């Protein structure tokens, strides 16, 4: 049974020559799980918005969309509200009311259901999604993951036939994201709801999808089962290969005639099959001889910080210490709510620890005057780039931070470096998420810091932008970077040192390679896939290199 049929859909936004969607033809069957991927700005969101009438953007449009055989435009508001569910990216702004139970009932109230029907459906949904425990809570007490789950549940309460999700996990931490995606899969398997999703964590959704659609510049460039899509992309030599799950990337990097693996499990047996009859010539990569971390000149030195938010609260930091060597990229990883972000805040003086000391560049932080500390010394890139924006254009935004005589030229040079030059006259809220992140970074860098602190910098970035971001960071010479992150793959690739943060303190610190090859759960997919063969391969490149040498 066909659910959605998109025929020759083209669309361009008003005052724009460029086609945001270019001759899209796609048929979606009932009960299918479809993942749409592509770089940011490739038209994924625009396409999804066309499937939901009330939020379809206005502009020039040709072609047609059929839902259940009838044109989508002719469907009345009430039917489409309940039949097509739409979950958006931002978990916070989608929530309408103040209580969890009210939010669950909101859609049904709008449809005009009577109290008893609503009561039953709300109860059903709360039980299905495991919401009972926080059913009476205020929505602002929930974590990001719970908020997004609530958004999903309140849409599922209307019993939609199709569920459309627009990058639903981009603002969540990995564990919450994986929970969310598993719930989606469960809905698909148990209720037969059609799922149409855009996502950049392909690792998590690739194996679960029935079909994958790859978009580029408003066109569909590949569409089919996950394996064939990989093949197709490889054939086109498309950049999107870099976004594929790790096992697929390694597979295409090595080049093998066996079946393409998608999950880590398949990747392990693929490695086994490929290297089974060969004696391993080399099973480890050389460790770079790094100086002992404690002997290097520290840019940041924090000793036994203790901190709590209120007099009667529990300690968040329990004697946390760190030594960040000058010029290094230092990453702190760890679970949610362990106090990582608080640690970062106490290092830059936003939170005052009640015990312990922080030395920035060898000088105690309390001896700095506030303007001295933040001028040419320390800068913090917040998690949400939007919280840095106060002006009308990107240019003004950057000018605000630049100081001195060559203000203009500084801004232009920085814009060039972060590839913002064409965006200088746009409003900072009108550019894409990745571009906002770059603007925020440029703005922070214009203060010419010697030390840059970053809180979850890669949250919500797609793989390409991560590479670009890493390139910008690498080009910043003589800057010490301390970042707190959930993004294991990013830390493994680019960080010099990695620390594990747990229960209010740093448990262990090591170079990225030693750190991740020593862990067995908290490590990269490449390492999990290859640890039974190779001793210390942590990135895709490592595994590919070792495979090639042994073949």
């Amino acid at each position, binding site marked *: 049974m066909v659910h959605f049929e998109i025929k020759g859909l083209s669309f361009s936004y008003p005052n724009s020559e460029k086609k945001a969607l270019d001759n899209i033809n796609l048929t979606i069957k009932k009960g299918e799980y479809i993942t749409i991927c592509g770089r940011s700005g490739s038209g994924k969101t625009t396409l999804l918005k066309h499937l*939901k009438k*009330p*939020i379809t953007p206005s502009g020039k449009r040709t072609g047609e969309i059929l839902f259940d055989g009838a044109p989508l435009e002719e469907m*009345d*508001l*009430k039917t489409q*509200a*309940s039949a097509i569910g*739409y979950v*958006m990216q931002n978990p*916070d*702004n*989608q*929530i*309408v*009311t*103040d*209580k969890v*139970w*009210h939010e669950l*009932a*909101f*859609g*049904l*109230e*709008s*449809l*005009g*259901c*009577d*109290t008893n029907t*609503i*009561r039953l459906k*709300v109860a059903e949904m709360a039980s299905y999604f495991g919401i009972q425990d926080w059913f*009476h809570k*205020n*929505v*602002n007490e929930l974590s990001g993951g719970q908020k997004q789950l609530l*958004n999903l549940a*309140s*849409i599922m309460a*209307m019993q939609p036939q199709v569920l459309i999700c627009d990058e639903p996990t981009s603002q969540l931490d990995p564990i919450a994201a994986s929970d969310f995606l598993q719930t989606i899969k469960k809905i698909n398997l148990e209720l037969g709801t059609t799922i149409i999703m855009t996502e950049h964590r392909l690792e998590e959704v690739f194996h679960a999808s029935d079909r994958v659609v790859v978009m580029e510049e408003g066109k569909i460039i590949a569409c089919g089962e996950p394996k064939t899509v990989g093949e197709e992309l490889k054939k086109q030599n498309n950049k999107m290969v870099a976004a594929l799950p790790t096992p697929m990337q390694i597979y295409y990097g090595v080049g093998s005639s066996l079946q393409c693996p998608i999950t880590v499990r398949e990747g392990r047996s693929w490695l086994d099959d490929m290297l089974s009859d060969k004696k391993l010539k080399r099973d480890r990569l050389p460790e770079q001889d790094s100086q002992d971390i404690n002997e290097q000149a520290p840019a940041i030195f924090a000793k036994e910080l203790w901190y709590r938010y209120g007099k009667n609260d529990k300690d968040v930091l329990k004697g946390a210490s760190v030594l960040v060597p000058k010029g290094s990229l230092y990453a702190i990883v760890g679970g949610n709510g362990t106090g990582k972000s608080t640690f970062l*805040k106490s290092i*830059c003086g936003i939170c005052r620890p009640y015990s312990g000391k922080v030395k920035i560049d060898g000088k105690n932080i309390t001896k700095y005057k506030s*303007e001295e500390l*933040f*001028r040419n010394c320390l*800068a*913090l890139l*917040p998690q*949400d780039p939007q*919280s*840095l*924006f*106060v002006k009308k254009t990107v240019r003004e935004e950057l000018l*605000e*931070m630049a100081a001195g005589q060559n203000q203009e030229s500084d801004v232009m040079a920085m814009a060039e470096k972060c590839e913002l030059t064409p965006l200088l006259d746009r409003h900072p*809220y009108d550019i894409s998420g990745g571009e906002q992140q770059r603007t925020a970074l440029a703005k*922070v860098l214009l*203060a010419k810091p010697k030390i840059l602190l970053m809180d979850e910098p890669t949250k919500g970035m797609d793989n390409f932008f991560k590479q670009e971001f890493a390139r910008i960071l690498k080009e910043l010479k003589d800057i010490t970077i301390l970042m707190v992150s959930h993004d294991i793959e990013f830390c493994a690739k680019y960080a010099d040192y990695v620390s594990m943060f747990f229960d209010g303190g740093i448990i262990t610190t090591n170079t990225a390679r030693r750190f991740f090859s020593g862990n067995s759960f908290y490590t990269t997919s490449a390492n999990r896939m290859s640890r039974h063969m190779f001793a210390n391969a942590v990135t895709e490149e490592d595994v590919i290199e070792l495979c090639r040498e042994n073949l």
Partner: protein
Amino acid sequence: MSKETAFAQINPMVCFIYIIGAMALCMFTIHPVAGFAVLFMTLLCYVNVCGRVVLKKLPLLLVVYMILSLSNPVFNTRGETILFTYFGGRPFTLEALCYGMVLSAMFISVMLLFGIYNRMMTSEKLIYIFGGLAPNMGLILSMVLRFVPHYGNQIKKISMARHIKEEGKYSKVTNLLSAMTTWSLEAGIVTADSMKCRGYGCGKRGRFSIYSFKRKDIVVLFLTILLFLTVMVCRVKGGLDAVFIPHIKIIGRDNIYFVIAMCAMVLYLAIPIVINVTEAVKWYILRLKA
């Protein structure tokens, strides 16, 4: 929030009517015996509903009570029995003092009732009560209650991000305001989209609440109305009459209406205590049996 008491679990509408009724009773009572009985009962009620922590506030209440009582004769000099004079002959009368004591008892009772009201009527209960009268009003109230902490959060985030830039107090506030305006418009669009996606405005709205009318609620409502009316009838019949000035004249035990009114009043104010205590006793017995 701590666990709700049994009384807090009755239907908010009943609870609301009850508290408004109790306030009305207090305010119409100038009979000294009744007044002090009401004060005593509301105090018991307050402690029962809000927990023993509030006992710490008692000394403060006592001070307020003394000040209010003693200040009445200062402004009101009428009355037959002059206790003493001051400021060259300004009288301080016994009648005015008694009147002041009764009035302040009433005042304190109403204050305590407001305390109980605050504890009982959470925002969602208010929305339930007024949402019945105007469904959209209820939704708007709920959205406002959602936005206040949501905006507060964003203000915190922005001012934290602004740490990197030193600026004057004035420009700090204007920048924050401008950033908040942009952000809230942007966030508002998303919220509006989300509402539209979930069918807002496609017809008459249904109404859902987590409260329902149970037998217990009906019993309490019935008792509330019955006792309230009894007191009112007795009052009209003169059972609670009291005159202080020029000399004290109050209705006593020999008047049947006075006796009935007193009983009804005490019973009325004992309702929350009775509910809470029976619940506790029930638990105790159940646990004994187990």
